[in-house]
């Protein structure tokens, strides 16, 4: 396992708001290897984005990394100075955001936004930086990149903007890309284009990828491993086949069950009752227990992380054993 790009151990990120402490990320551990794709799935507010921001240390007050370590090639990012961190961001670690309409600065030209990224980390001439930018645009399949460099973001469609964002992420051939729901806002055919692009790049460059999404179907085809988050914790993690085909956690199970295609056409869908709990001052114990059919008194304590099989992590007192229908 010398290929380990990122190893997150017991990460906690909390928001100290006036209303109380929001434990957005609580005791999260996972790792990604070179050239592999980790799918981080979970419902809205489960802490996926905050996890991503914690890794590149862009959690703003009142949020703070409250504990744990983020080992990037063995170096603990949580301990780096802001200056050292800045050297890594956009360079060794890149991030792509959800909404392509919002991530590019609307009033700056594409070339400005790309060149500044190149020159932030490499001492190269303007022309050289521009050439690199153009190549990166070409790499993500933007036609006539030379002209497109002169454009403003609003002149691009959503899919093209997302490709520009990806191109920016790729400028320094980073070791790790954190992609925070980068295709959620896009149409199906465009999403497929982006996924195709990303797959190709991961394979060619050997970048490790954390793909954050709430859509199980997307990661099913893309990821090597999956981590399912619920209320700030990873409740189940493992390789795609294990987690999707033989989910052990009742939540994962319910989630997969409620996908329409897993149900017979026209019948009632299987549904998880209730709603996601608020992370504000979450009481101790399994956060899912209020919605869980199997919950009992034992669940009022925090379930520990167990490893029922090699490479399969689970946080549940009552794991399901039978595979999903």
């Amino acid at each position: 396992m010398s290929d380990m790009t990122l190893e997150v151990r017991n990460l906690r990120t909390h928001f100290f708001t006036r209303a109380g402490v929001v434990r957005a990320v609580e005791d999260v551990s996972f790792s990604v290897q070179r050239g592999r794709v980790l799918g981080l799935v979970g419902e809205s507010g489960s802490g996926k984005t905050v996890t991503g921001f914690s890794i590149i240390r862009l959690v703003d007050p009142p949020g703070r990394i409250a504990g744990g370590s983020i080992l990037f090639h063995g170096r603990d990012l949580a301990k780096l100075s802001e200056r050292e961190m800045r050297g890594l961001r956009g360079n060794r670690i890149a991030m792509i955001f959800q909404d392509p309409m919002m991530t590019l600065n609307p009033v700056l030209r594409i070339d400005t936004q790309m060149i500044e990224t190149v020159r932030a980390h490499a001492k190269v001439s303007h022309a050289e930086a521009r050439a690199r930018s153009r190549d990166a645009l070409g790499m993500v399949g933007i036609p006539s990149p030379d002209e497109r460099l002169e454009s403003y973001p609003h002149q691009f469609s959503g899919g093209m903007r997302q490709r520009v964002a990806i191109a920016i992420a790729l400028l320094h051939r980073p070791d790790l890309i954190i992609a925070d729901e980068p295709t959620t806002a896009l149409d199906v055919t465009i999403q497929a284009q982006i996924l195709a692009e990303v797959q190709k790049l991961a394979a060619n460059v050997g970048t490790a990828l954390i793909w954050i999404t709430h859509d199980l179907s997307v990661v099913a085809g893309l990821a090597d491993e999956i981590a399912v988050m619920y209320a700030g914790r990873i409740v189940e993690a493992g390789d795609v086949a294990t987690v999707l085909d033989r989910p052990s956690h009742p939540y994962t199970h319910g989630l997969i069950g409620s996908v329409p295609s897993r149900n017979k056409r026209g019948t009632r869908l299987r549904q998880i009752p209730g709603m996601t709990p608020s992370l504000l001052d979450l009481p101790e114990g399994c956060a899912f227990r209020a919605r869980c059919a199997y919950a009992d008194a034992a669940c009022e304590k925090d379930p520990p992380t167990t490893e029922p099989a090699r490479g399969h992590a689970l946080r549940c007192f009552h794991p399901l054993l039978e595979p999903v229908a």
Partner: protein
Amino acid sequence: MSDVAAVVREETPFHRFVHEFAESKLAVAGFVVVAIIAFLAVFASVIAPQNPYDLAQLDIMDGRLPPGSVSADGLTFWLGTDDQGRDMLSGILYGLRISLTVGAGSAIIAGIIGSALGLTAAYVGGKIETGIMRLVDLQLSFPAILVALMILAFLGKGVLNVTLALVIVEWARYARTARGAALVERRREYIEAAECLALPRWRVLFRHLLPNCMPPLIVIGTIQIARAITLEATLSFLGLGVPITEPSLGLLIANGYQYMLSGKYWISFYPGIALLVTIVAINLVGDQLRDVLNPRLRR
């Protein structure tokens, strides 16, 4: 299903608003000061030792007395007197009343007229919108001072007329803001829903659209009150304000202004302080309102 409660406490938007407003101590202090000032202004006739607008109660022989002087009839002028022998304290209390009436009155009337026009423009669109907005442009490109002069010349001086002049000067800003807000809100789905439910147009306009356009209007409302008060003061300085026998704060300052160099500071200074405190307090409230009512800054 719904047995899982979403939020525990029953909370009206008003409660929440009060709550968020109270987060800034400074704004609360501002609000308290505004309330005190409003109280003083409303009950000026009870509190003030003298009715400064009643010529029979003034005596120029008491003119320009320094603070703390005592008149022939045994009245103490805590803040001194002006050139007409007007007790400054009483003058300030009554002046507050005029200033607030003029400021708040014009802001409210202009607000009502301007927002109604702005909303209509946004909601109805077409020729009516173009017409209203051109009128707004015309109004905004006309210097306020000239408008005020013409109106005051036409109607004569008077608190009501100054208010009217300020309304004519101010309404356009509201119309612009209301239209801007309404153009955004109009595209919201709840307006479509109301239309889909075949609700009458006026109902959609005033019950659905208007309340949701209120935040920016309230914000510019507070600012406009402050603006109106200062504008009235400026008009007074230029000799176009309220009648001299019923001075507002601005007129008191303008009157005392000429005594600044001769050391009779109190004639201008105390009304100045009163004006300053009033406007600062209103603006503190306005600032916090802006933050609280701004959906983009909402936490």
